[in-house]
């Protein structure tokens, strides 16, 4: 339809390094019914800002269990968290050491270099 209004979601994403100030960046993402927060984060990396640091592997299957973040202040797998039209705040896990942006240190100690 010519007059169809495309729905969008607004993501507020916490950015920065552990020793820095940190800040929120805002992104507008085309919204489709059923999409996940991870879908939106991957869209942002592909089309807007590839420097956004995120951690994920299986994309969709909730098998790798590596994509956790705070979504609207709740701990969620971003691949499972449904995006909603309107503002969604995404922040790194609070109880894990921050590496950069949404990536926290979840790797077991004995798997590090």
């Amino acid at each position, binding site marked *: 339809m010519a007059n169809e209004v495309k729905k969008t979601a607004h993501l507020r994403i916490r950015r920065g390094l552990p020793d820095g100030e940190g800040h929120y960046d805002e992104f507008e993402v085309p919204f489709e019914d*059923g999409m*996940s927060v991870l879908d939106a984060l991957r869209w942002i990396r592909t*089309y807007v800002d*590839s*420097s956004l*640091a995120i951690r994920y592997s299986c994309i*969709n299957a*909730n098998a790798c269990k590596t994509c956790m973040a705070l979504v609207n202040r709740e701990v969620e797998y971003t691949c499972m968290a449904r995006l909603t039209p309107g503002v969604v705040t995404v922040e790194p896990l609070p109880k894990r050491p921050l590496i950069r942006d949404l990536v926290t240190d979840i790797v077991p100690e004995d*798997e590090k270099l």
Partner: protein
Amino acid sequence: MPDLSTDVLVIGAGGAGMYAAIAAAQRGSSVILVDKGQVGRGGATIMAQMTVAVALGQQEPDSVTLHLEDTLRAGRGLCNEELAALLCEDGPQRILEMEHWGTRWARENGHIKQEMAPGHSVKRCCYVDFLNTGPAVAATLRRKVSEIPAIRRISNLAVVDILTHDGQAIGAVALNLADGDLITIQASALILAAGGLTKLYERNSASANMGGEAYALALWAGAELIDMEFVQFFPIGHLAPRLVGMDPIMWDPFRYKLGGKLLNGQFQEFIDRYGSTDFGQYNATRDIAAYAILKEVEAGRGTPHGGAYLDFRHIAESELRSAFGPVIDRLAANGIDLTKTAVEVGPIAHYHMGGVRVDVNMRTRIEGLYAAGEAVGGANGANRLSGNAITEAFVFGARAGSAAAEAAKREFGRWEESLANESRQRLEPFRDNLQRDGATPITLQAELQKLMWEQVGPFRTGEKLAEALARIERMRKEDLQRLSIGGAREFNLDLHDAFELRAMLTTAEAVVRSALARTESRGAHQREDFPNTDARCLKNQVVELKEGELLTRWIAPVRLNRSEASRG
């Protein structure tokens, strides 16, 4: 001095890599097991919600010979029969070994439960309930690996180059995602277990880390690839409605446990028009099903998202629930009620039959360089049977680990610091990327995925392939040299994507060149301009890198001595 040193370096920590690490350590080797994601959480194995094909004969009489016959038939005459036989022969002991290590295969009446799957002539496929095979076996292997002190695990370390000296592999250079540094690893033997190439395609069932690196690393090191034109498109990948928290290839077990009708956009059955029968029994092989669905779409009889309907509305809710229990609730959370609506499915890139050319001990032609799992080419010929991929991961992993450990006991080439420096000097400017005026690596990855899907997908023509080749070459020679890469050191995904893209382009070119040269249709390789199977093409293609160019040549398939084959 190298930053790290080990007997055996295993590249990629999915099913094959972890199995290889265990086998090498059991033979007395020190092992470093690296993954660009997290050890035991990436790759294809963990994604498999489905089944593992092995001739245990616990459900009904079966034999290695019968499993091999089914595998060879599906392979359309192109299987490396020695590799296929190894897969079938060693499969049962690997499955029992996994059970001994803690995997809880579904059981009934005191035996491992085995189901039918397409292309198999008996009930042969075991699994872990509910749709949990991959996560369960990955957990078993992660635990086993972590219990062995001789295995050092390293996550977020991406191998970007194999070092060779006098025809021997002597180590590798790897990108440490934590800080962006390139480090060197000395190894007496190396195993490429980094999986397949499904990430090359826009529609795929992969995890994020299957960009074909094993193939590119092998080519760059001087090893050969085989059968690169044969990409398996899983016929009934999930298209719509949007489904999260599930593997997009989840519908297969639903079909072989419950039936389920495949219907076109006009709600008519259609597989029988394409040289196969189905009618709720689900015995059309993957290549025929994929072909039939896309032909219906092309004829204007597709579903809204460009696929077919998969319909379970004739099956009682109680039956759905007893077969899939909690999965029915996960579907409900996605707004899907199978008793009321049909879902849309269609072909998606799922697996690669081609890969690194090896012998039955998983050796490449480069001494000290091995491959395992999906990285290996040849066992499945032109089309893989469902259920053979995890079997292959375990069997080839175990074999590669043992063989690499034996090889590592011999005195191998000394470490060559100059070689390591040379590799670093080649890669650091790429990493530091002095020209920042081009596209970002992830943007180019998206372009490549679209190109591969549209031009090098389930249906191919010489014209489309030639166009794709020209674009891929330009991406490699021009775009790749002036990528825009962010400057952060910590967890810089641009850097990760750039090295991945570099490998993806080499692997994509190997696929396209092989597809161009095969002027026939066979198994998963379908040429619209050459729709028939041509007996003169009953040969395999080998790819190698010579003076910077990828060259293909034909070889006769590896056949088993028949009297030996019928032993089983």
